[in-house]
Every structure is written in C-alpha cells, then in structure tokens.
C-alpha cells in the first residue's frame, strides 16, 4: 500500500505551560518544546505497521516552516521511506480549509491508496482530515481505532464512538482516515534512529510547485480567523477549603457525610 501520513508540529501540551502572551495576539512560545502531534504519531505507527505487514511505502508530509522538517524526519525514523515538506510564506495564516487544500495538492502529486491524519491536534478542531477527503472526493472515517486490510479494494475499520463503543464499517480505498490515540503502541525513536535517516533528502514544495493560487490559501483565503487568545474570566467556581491536612480531612469527612457520600 502507498500511504501518506499528514503530521503537524505542535507545542508539547503535557510538558509545557500554555500562557497567553502580552496583548493576547499569541501564546508565549519562547520556552515551548515542540514535537509531533500525539495523534499523528499514532497514525505514523499504524501506517508503518500496515506496510510492514503488507508491503508498500509510507510518506510523511507536513505543512510548516523549516522547523517542521525535524518532525518529518523523526516520523520517518519510525519506518517511513519518504518525507515531504510544504513551505511557503503564502501558507501562513491558513484556516482549516486552507491547510486541507494545500495537503490535497500534495496528495494529488502521488498515487496513494490511503491517507492518514491524526483525529485532533492542538486547536482541537479535528477538521483537516474530513476536508481533505472531500477535496479529493474520497470516502472518510474519523477517530479510527482499528484498521484491517481486507482485499485490495477496501478496509474494515473501527471507529471509537461515545461510551467506548466501537463502530465497525467497511470503507473503500483509496480513502482518508483520521486516527484516534490508543490504536497501537508507537515504537521508540531515539537519537540514533533519527541519525539513521539524517541524510535522506526531504523535498520542499511551495505554492508554485503544488499548483496553488496564493489567494486561495493562507491568510488571504481564510474564512476563519483567530483574533486573539485569552483566559476567560472565571465565573462561579468551587468553594475552596483551606487548612492543614488534618483540618482539611476533618472538614471533608463532615461534608461527605452531610452530602451522603459515606454509605
């Protein structure tokens, strides 16, 4: 199978404190550590496992600047033969549709049987995969937690829906799937793994190479614009208790008893 996996370089949410910068135009980024979006990492692992079983190639693609190359290379170290970087000043400020348009142009340059994205990223929208599928006119499934290849023409997939229930469907290929965390256990990539792919060339494609009109992407083409970041005024919130551990425990016992928490 020829698989394309779309990855995004994001601030590492767990290891960083996200703080709004002065004026709210952006968050403070100087101290942030970046890495690949966690959902995308699961997608890459899944693609590599499929190709290890069935043969084929995995290509990693990311839209971003030169720093995104580091992420593409790290994901290639998981077992992908090729990488692609989509870079152009004209791409800045793209909304979800803009990003999907750019990725679609890159996808059309290859002959892929399957495109994987992560189900969510740092902005919590989970939109790019679905839009990409529609732009390519391919079938789509989101929050996929299981992929089984059936014959050459379709896949049996599982989606993780509410309540932990798994929705099983058959989807025709080529298709786009957005991947949920927990679908597999991603392999470890250390410094050595990355050094092994250090010399592989990662082609950089700009708007021209992708055949894109600058007006259709980037801030110029965006219908959705983030104006600022802020931390909302805290409304009615919890009554906070104070005291030493002993005192707190005492108060809590009384409270729990009063509310029927001790049976």
């Amino acid at each position, binding site marked *: 199978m020829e698989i394309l996996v779309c990855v995004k370089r994001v601030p590492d*949410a767990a290891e960083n404190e*996200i703080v*709004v910068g002065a004026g709210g135009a952006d968050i403070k980024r100087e101290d942030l550590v970046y890495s690949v979006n966690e959902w995308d990492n699961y997608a890459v692992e899944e693609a590599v496992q499929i190709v290890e079983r069935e043969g084929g190639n995995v290509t990693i693609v990311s839209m971003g600047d030169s720093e995104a190359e580091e992420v593409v290379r790290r994901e290639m170290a998981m077992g992908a033969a090729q990488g692609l970087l989509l870079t152009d000043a004209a791409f800045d400020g793209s909304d*979800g*549709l803009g990003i*999907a348009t750019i990725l679609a142009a890159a996808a059309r340059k290859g002959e892929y049987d399957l495109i994987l994205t992560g*189900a969510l990223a*740092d*902005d*919590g*929208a*989970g939109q790019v995969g679905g*839009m990409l*599928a*529609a732009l390519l006119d391919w*079938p*789509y*499934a*989101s*929050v996929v937690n299981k992929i089984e290849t059936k014959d050459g023409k379709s896949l049996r997939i*599982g989606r993780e829906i509410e*309540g*932990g*229930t*798994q*929705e*099983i*469907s*058959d*989807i025709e290929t080529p298709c786009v799937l*957005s991947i949920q965390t*927990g679908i597999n256990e991603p392999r470890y990539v250390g410094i050595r793994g990355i050094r092994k792919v250090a010399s592989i060339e990662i082609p950089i494609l700009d708007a021209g190479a992708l055949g894109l009109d600058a007006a259709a992407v980037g801030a110029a083409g965006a*219908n*959705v*614009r*983030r*104006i*600022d*970041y*802020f*931390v*909302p005024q805290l*409304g009615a*919130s*919890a*009554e*906070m*208790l104070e005291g030493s*551990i*002993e005192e*707190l*425990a005492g108060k809590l*016992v009384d409270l*729990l*008893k009063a*509310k*029927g*928490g*001790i*049976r």
Partner: protein
Amino acid sequence: MDAKVFVYVAHKDGKADDSALELVTAAQSMFPGSNPVALVAGSGIDAVCQETAATYGEVWKFDQAALAYPNAELLRPLLVKVLPAGAMLLLPHNTFGLDLGPGLSVQRGVTYVPDVVGIDGLEGTTLKVVRQEFAGQVSAHVHCAVAKGAVITVRSGAFRPAPAGAVAGQVLDRSADTAGLSARRKFVELIQAEAGDIDITREDVLVSVGRGIGEKENIALVEDLAEAMGAAVSCSRPIVDAKWLDRPRQVGTSGKTVKPKVYLALGISGSFQHLGGIKGNPFLLAINKNPKAPIFQAATVGVVADLMELLPVLTEKIKKSR
C-alpha cells in the same frame, strides 16, 4: 443576516439526543430571531420527529431503511442535496459531528466553524465565536465569514437546553429526497465496550482518579478511600490509556456517562471530555495539586493538596467516624 438555520437532531433508540435542545439555544444565540429547522434522519423515526416538533417549529423527516444507522458518509450527500444555499447547519461536536461536518462544509462550499463554546455575536456576515485550544488551556476569539453559509459544530453543555414542548411544530416528510443514496463506507456492526464487573453508571457515589495520582501503585490509596466510603472507583481517560484501570471505569465522552449524587475528582484536571460524562449536577469535590486546574470551575468544593498526603488521612478519619 437573514439565513435559514438548520439543526441536525441526533437520536438513539427512539429518543432525541440532549444536544437537540442545546442546539436550539445555540442557534438562537448565533442567529437571533431565526427559527431553526430540525433535520431528523433515520428509520422508523415518527416518535422522534413528534418529540422534536414540540421544540422546533419545523421538522424535516428523512425516513429510510438505509439510514437506520447514522452513517455520516450516507447523510452527507443527503444534506448537500436538501440544504438550501446560504443555510447555516448546526451539529453537535461529537464523533458524529466530526465525521460529518468538515467534509460537508467543503461539499457545500461553506465555512466550517468547529467546537464552539461561546458566542460573541453576528456582525453583518461575520460570526464571532469563542473556541478553546491546547486541550482547553486557553480560549480564543474567532471570526468566521459566513456570507455563503456555514456548518457549525457546538460543544456539548456549552449552551443551556431550551425548554422542551413549548411549541407545536409540524413535521414535513421529505423522505423522498433519500432515494438513490449511496456511500463508499458501509456500516457493519457495533461492538459494545466490555461490561466488566462494575457498572459505574448505577453508582451514587464515585471516587474518580486522574493523572494527578502519579503512579499506578498509588491507586491503592484511592481504592482504600472508596472502600472506606462504600463508593465505587472510576477514572479519567489517561488512567485507562495507561492500563492502570479497565475501560468500564472510565468517565467521559468516550467512556461512560454517570449520574451520581457525590463525585470525588482526585488528581483530575477537568477536561471537557471528562466533565462531559458527568450529568445531573452532583456534589463535586475536587482535590488537585494545581490551583489553576479547570476542574475547580466545575466543582462544588475544591481543595488544593497533595493526594499522597491527604488521602490516607482522610481514609483513616472516615473509618474512625463510622
């Protein structure tokens, strides 16, 4: 702006989803004065349509055997067909909305506004909403150009449910529009999550543990507390992902929905995915080391403390108090 507003009403086992009532409020906040039309698709859905018509002025019914299971790939072409140009469509932001919405907005050539948690208003053809980013750590003001229409997904619980049964709406049967639908993704079956030996949805008192517990072995302290209280242990998603507790114990949108009277949130940050699984406004006691944890917004009572220090002492006191 004089747009036609539609709401997709999800339903299960003959009953409309809670989101149906919330989306009415959302629609009216975004487009004041609009009378949103409910779209109900499925098979054998007369009862749902009647129920929905009591809140929505107009219900469009799409009844067809092939739609018995809500397959977004089948529903998308249907909606492209029936939604007029320039229409706004509101969806719940859940796994169905995520599945349907983005592709639908592209096929309709309209703007996609995902996971709205608040509205600032409509100014001309610019819809001003509030979204969250970075797993809810910050909020953002977002402006969306909706002149040509939009597909908008709305966060569960962000808007209050409208009062049901306030209207005597009518149901229009548009099932004819469902003829000739096909999709390249076919529903096969549902696999329910393992029942396990515990059903937390029936418990009145839950002691819930999150990532703040630190290590797997420390969960023993939570179990001791639950035992002393006569309560059951539940948890948030990261605990299940790490395989420290089984999935049947997970509370949240991808886990179980619980309606306890008393809920202890220990070391739980309070993401909306977790809170989305707690209904019925219980007495929520949150204990967390981080005073800025979002859980303290949702909690009734909060304590900033180290679980490793507080839990054993609390358990002791409860045992002594019996």
